[in-house]
C-alpha cells in the first residue's frame, strides 16, 4: 500500500547506511529510525564495554545570533546563560508560563552572542514555534536541523577512536565542553556530551558529510569493536542512568522540581518564562517526585503502569524495562513526596496484579563520564 503524501517518515542522512547494516527500522517521532541491529542487549553491552555509534541526526538544532542573543536565551531557558562560557555546553529547559516543561535541551555557546540549541526530534516543530514566538530583542534564530547531522560516539574507547579521526586534541576536552575542528576531514563540533552515562562525544556535522564520517568511524573503530547502536539500546542505556526522556518522564504536565531537574533552574538569574510558577511550586513544596525503583517481585514495570501503596493508586511509572548492565528490572516514576525516600516499598500494577518494588538510589549504574 502506498503511503499518502505527507505521512511518509522522515529520513536522516544515515538511512541508507542503516538499511545496508541490516537494521530493524521503526517510525519514531515521524522519523524512520533503527531500533536495533545485532540486538538491544548486545548493543547496550557494547557501549558500556567498548564503543558504539548512534545516529541522532533526527534531533533538532536552532542557531541564535545577535546583540541580544544572550539576553533572549536567558529569558527563554531555565538555566543561567551568563554562566556558559564560549566552548561550553549546558543542559537546560524550556518551560511554559505554568512551569510545565516544553522541552529539555543542550545549549552551546559558540561566541559572545552566538549559540546552538539542540532539542528533541519529536519536538522540533513545537519548539521552533515556541522559541520564535517568545524571542525578544535583537536576536535572529535559524532552524538548522535539516542541514545538520549528529553522530554520538559513546563508550570507554570513544576517546581513542574519535581521537584518531579528529584534528583537535580530544583528550584535553572536558565534560560538557566542545571544540570546533574536523573529524575524518569533515567540519565538526566535537562535544563531550552524551545520553549513556559512558564517556563519549556527539559530533555535529553538515548533513551531506554525515554518512562519510559514519563510515569512517565504523571502519576506523574495528580494533575497538565499534558497532552501530539503535534506539532500543539508547533507551536502556539512559534508563540505567535515570536520564529523563521527554514524552515519557517529562512533558508539559510536569514541572522541573518534581522531575528532579531543579539543578538546571536558576531563579536568581532574573526573569524567564515559567519562573513565577516554578517558584510557587518551590514555596509550597512539590507534592510528588520522580524516583528510580527496582522490582522486588519478578515483573517488568513499563510506562503507564500505576504505582500503588497500601492498596491505593498513588503514582505512575514513566519509564521501565530490564537494565542489561544492572541485570535487574528497573523503572522511573512519580510518587508522592512522602514515599520518595530510598528504601520505600511500593507496588507496580502489572496486568492487574500488584508487584512489589523498592525506591532506590540513582543512577542505577555508575557514571563513567569524563571527570
Amino acid at each position, binding site marked *: 500500500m502506498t503511503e499518502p503524501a505527507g505521512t511518509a517518515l522522515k529520513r536522516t542522512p544515515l538511512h541508507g547506511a542503516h538499511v545496508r547494516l541490516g537494521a*530493524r527500522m521503526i517510525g519514531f517521532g515521524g522519523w524512520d529510525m533503527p531500533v536495533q541491529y545485532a*540486538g538491544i542487549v548486545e548493543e547496550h553491552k557494547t557501549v558500556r564495554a567498548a564503543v558504539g555509534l548512534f545516529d541522532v541526526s533526527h534531533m533538532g538544532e536552532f542557531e541564535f545570533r545577535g546583540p541580544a542573543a544572550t539576553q533572549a536565551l536567558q529569558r527563554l531557558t531555565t538555566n543561567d546563560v551568563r554562566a556558559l562560557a564560549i566552548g561550553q555546553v549546558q543542559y537546560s529547559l524550556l518551560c511554559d508560563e505554568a512551569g510545565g516543561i516544553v522541552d529539555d535541551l543542550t545549549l552551546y555557546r559558540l561566541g559572545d552572542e552566538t549559540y546552538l540549541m539542540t532539542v528533541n526530534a519529536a519536538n522540533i516543530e513545537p519548539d521552533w514555534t515556541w522559541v520564535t514566538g517568545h524571542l525578544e530583542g535583537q536576536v535572529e534564530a535559524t532552524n538548522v536541523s535539516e542541514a545538520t547531522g549528529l553522530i554520538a560516539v559513546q563508550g570507554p574507547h570513544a576517546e581513542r577512536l574519535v581521537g584518531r579521526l579528529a584534528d583537535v586534541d580530544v583528550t584535553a576536552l572536558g565534560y560538557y565542553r566542545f571544540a570546533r575542528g574536523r573529524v575524518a576531514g569533515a567540519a565538526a563540533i566535537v562535544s563531550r556530551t552524551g545520553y549513556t552515562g559512558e564517556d563519549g562525544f556527539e559530533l555535529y556535522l553538515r548533513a551531506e558529510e554525515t554518512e562519510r564520517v559514519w563510515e569512517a568511524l565504523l571502519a576506523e573503530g574495528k580494533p575497538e569493536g565499534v558497532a552501530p547502536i539503535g534506539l*532500543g539500546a539508547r533507551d536502556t542505556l539512559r534508563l540505567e542512568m535515570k536520564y529523563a526522556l521527554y514524552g515519557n518522564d517529562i512533558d508539559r504536565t510536569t514541572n522541573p522540581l518534581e522531575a528532579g531537574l531543579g539543578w538546571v533552574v536558576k531563579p536568581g538569574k532574573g526573569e524567564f518564562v515559567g519562573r513565577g510558577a516554578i517558584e510557587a511550586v518551590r514555596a509550597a513544596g512539590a507534592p510528588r517526585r520522580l524516583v528510580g525503583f527496582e522490582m522486588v517481585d519478578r515483573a517488568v514495570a513499563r510506562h503507564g503502569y500505576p504505582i500503588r501503596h497500601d492498596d491505593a493508586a498513588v503514582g505512575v511509572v514513566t519509564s521501565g524495562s530490564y537494565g542489561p548492565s544492572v541485570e535487574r528490572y528497573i523503572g522511573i516514576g512519580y510518587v508522592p513526596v512522602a514515599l520518595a525516600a530510598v528504601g520505600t516499598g511500593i507496588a507496580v500494577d502489572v496486568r492487574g496484579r500488584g508487584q512489589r518494588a523498592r525506591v532506590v538510589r540513582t543512577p542505577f549504574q555508575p557514571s563513567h563520564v569524563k571527570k
Partner: protein
Amino acid sequence: MSQIPADLRYTKEHEWAKVEGGRARVGITHYAQDQLGDVVFVELPTVGAAVRQMQTFGVVESVKAVSDLFAPLSGEVAEVNGDLVGHPEKVNQDPYGAGWLIVVKLADAREADALLTAQQYAQHLQSAGGH
C-alpha cells in the same frame, strides 16, 4: 536447524506444539522470537493450571514489547520451564529446544488437528509478509 521444524504443529499466533502421547511441549517459533527481539521476561502459569486452546496462558516480554502467549491445545500444565526465570534469552537462542515454555497434559489430543502443519505455518508466514 530448520526454522520451522517439520515434526511440530503451529498456531497462527506463532506458538509451536510437540505432541507426544497424551502430552504436548509448547514454545514460540523462531519467527516470533526474532520479531520480539531480546526476551527479558516470561510469565508462565503454575503446574496444575488449566489452559484452553487459543486462550492466553502467559506473556513473553522483550525489552520493548509485551506479547500474549496463546495455548495451542487445552489441558493441564504438567511442567513449566524454570530455566527461563534466570535465562529468558534461551527463548531467543533455542526457541524449539531449551527455550520451551510449558508441557501440557492434553484434554483432547484431537485438538491438534486444528493446528497448522509446518508447511501451512510457512505459508502463513509468507502471506503475513514474514521471511
